């Protein structure tokens, strides 16, 4: 069930260079299930800016009806979001979309979770749920530079964490794929979220028999009604069959859609 609710800010903390962790409290937490779903955030009361912003759900705490989103301060919308302080309200529409199929990883199997930049947040809830199910979790996360790194410690709660930075200022120099290439084992399943070039590399399916990717696209409605966020399917790459990132995704099986 998608709900619209003015959620109360529990905390809004800077956790990295221009990276903020926003904890919100609201009844719609009850409807959140799959990691990888997102919420559509209205950052102002008026029309400046006009549209909602899609942000992945990073953590769900049903017990106290709170959830966490992590965002990079980028344009006007996220800049305004960064100004919210505890006690204020934020208009949230959600949960939206289909997340990562946690059940595809069986107890005892190994899952690699790959996050690039602000693709890291959904990996936290995913790691948590997988670990709960007895899946071995290995997180591979990539950032631009040391100051942009976040959630390494948090992910470490659920398994090993490997970090890459493009400039080599922290962890391994290079991309997450460089780390993956160095692994001497095959995981049972890979889950990934991050920039398109990263997803393309993982979409090859080279890193595990099962691969799931979370996509990004500019959105209007976020609920499947406006056709802003469609992509072609791999089966019919130039035809008129399509998937909507917002409501069919944002998580797709590797090879399902054209990235």
């Amino acid at each position, binding site marked *: 069930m998608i709900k619209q609710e003015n959620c109360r800010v529990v905390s809004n903390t800077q956790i990295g260079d221009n990276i903020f962790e926003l904890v919100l409290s609201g009844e719609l937490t009850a409807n959140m299930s799959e990691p990888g779903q997102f919420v559509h955030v209205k950052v102002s009361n008026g029309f400046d800016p006009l*549209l909602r912003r899609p942000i992945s759900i990073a953590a769900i705490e049903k017990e106290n009806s709170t959830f966490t989103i992590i965002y990079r301060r980028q344009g006007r919308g996220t800049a305004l979001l960064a100004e919210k302080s505890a006690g204020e309200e934020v208009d949230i529409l959600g949960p939206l979309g289909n997340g990562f199929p946690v059940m595809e990883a069986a107890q005892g199997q190994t899952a690699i979770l790959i996050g690039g930049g602000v693709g890291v947040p959904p990996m936290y809830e995913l790691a948590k749920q997988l670990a709960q199910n007895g899946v071995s979790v290995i997180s591979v996360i990539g950032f631009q530079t040391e100051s942009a790194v976040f959630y390494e410690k948090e992910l470490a709660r659920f398994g090993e964490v490997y970090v890459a930075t493009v400039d080599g200022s922290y962890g391994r120099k290079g991309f997450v794929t460089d780390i993956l290439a160095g692994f001497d084992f095959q995981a049972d399943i890979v889950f990934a979220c991050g920039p398109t070039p990263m997803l393309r590399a993982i979409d090859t399916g080279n890193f595990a028999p099962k691969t799931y990717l979370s996509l990004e696209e500019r959105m209007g409605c976020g609920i499947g009604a406006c056709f802003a966020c469609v992509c072609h399917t791999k089966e019919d790459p130039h035809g008129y069959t399509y998937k909507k990132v917002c409501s069919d995704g944002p998580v797709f099986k590797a090879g399902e859609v054209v990235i």
Partner: protein
Amino acid sequence: MSSLSIQIPGLNLRNPVMPASGCFGFGKEFSQLYDLSLLGAIMVKATTPEPRFGNPTPRVAETPGGMLNAIGLQNPGLEKVFIEELPWLEQFDVPIIANIAGSTEDDYVAVAEQLSQAPNVKALELNISCPNVKTGGIAFGTDPDLAKALTKKVKNVSEVPVYVKLSPNVSDIVKIARAVEEGGADGLTMINTLLGMRIDLTTGQPILANKTGGLSGPSIKPVAIRMIYEVSQQVSIPIIGMGGIQSAEDVVEFFLAGASAAAVGTQNFIDPFVCPKIIEELPEILQRLGADHISELTGRSWKKNERLAYHRP
């Protein structure tokens, strides 16, 4: 009789509020949020003879107080709309206005002929104003003669009244409105989007893959109000107004300008519950304005005598 019910050709509506075409798909998504029978009507997504994928993404970009879209008339095609989408909507007690589009006159005629036979389609909306397709669309909407001829052809085959959707990207909107009225249009819907563009500073390229797109949202409201004000005084067919509506107050402003019903587009993306909210809020505003019925407000800004009568009760 409720203070909100309205009668315009083909449409006997419990209230004058409806989602605008392209901003509500074929209703499925919103049906999960509220009961579609609350709506006055539904303007469904444009239908073309064949399925269309539309334009490459990005298809939307934000602008100050508005947004650009270049969806490019993506739709499942006439057949699927007729045998799947429209029948699915029959479960709701709500009249459908079918938005019809195409590249050629024949396209329009084919879609009109078939869709007008669907039992829940009570009116057609002739989309001669889509700025996001290479052929057809807006070309018909900027030339009075083409617009008139097309309207005639569609009228000939349609089983239900035909509303023509006007483009604001014209020098003289009244001329086009008169032309389609002469062509036999039963009503007008206006406005479609203004043609606009945004360029990304970093890439130096337009944000939309299609480069240009249609501007919608609150920023275009003053243009819509002006055009409806002008046209409503020059034609005798009713107007369904749209362009930037966000609130019940906005709906009233459209009525005052000359509209007989109102459609909400972009705001559905920002507040998916906006239509039922507006419907709920309208009666109170009518009361505040001293109107017994919403149709009294139509054109009050230019119907001098009625206004005076109202001010001296």
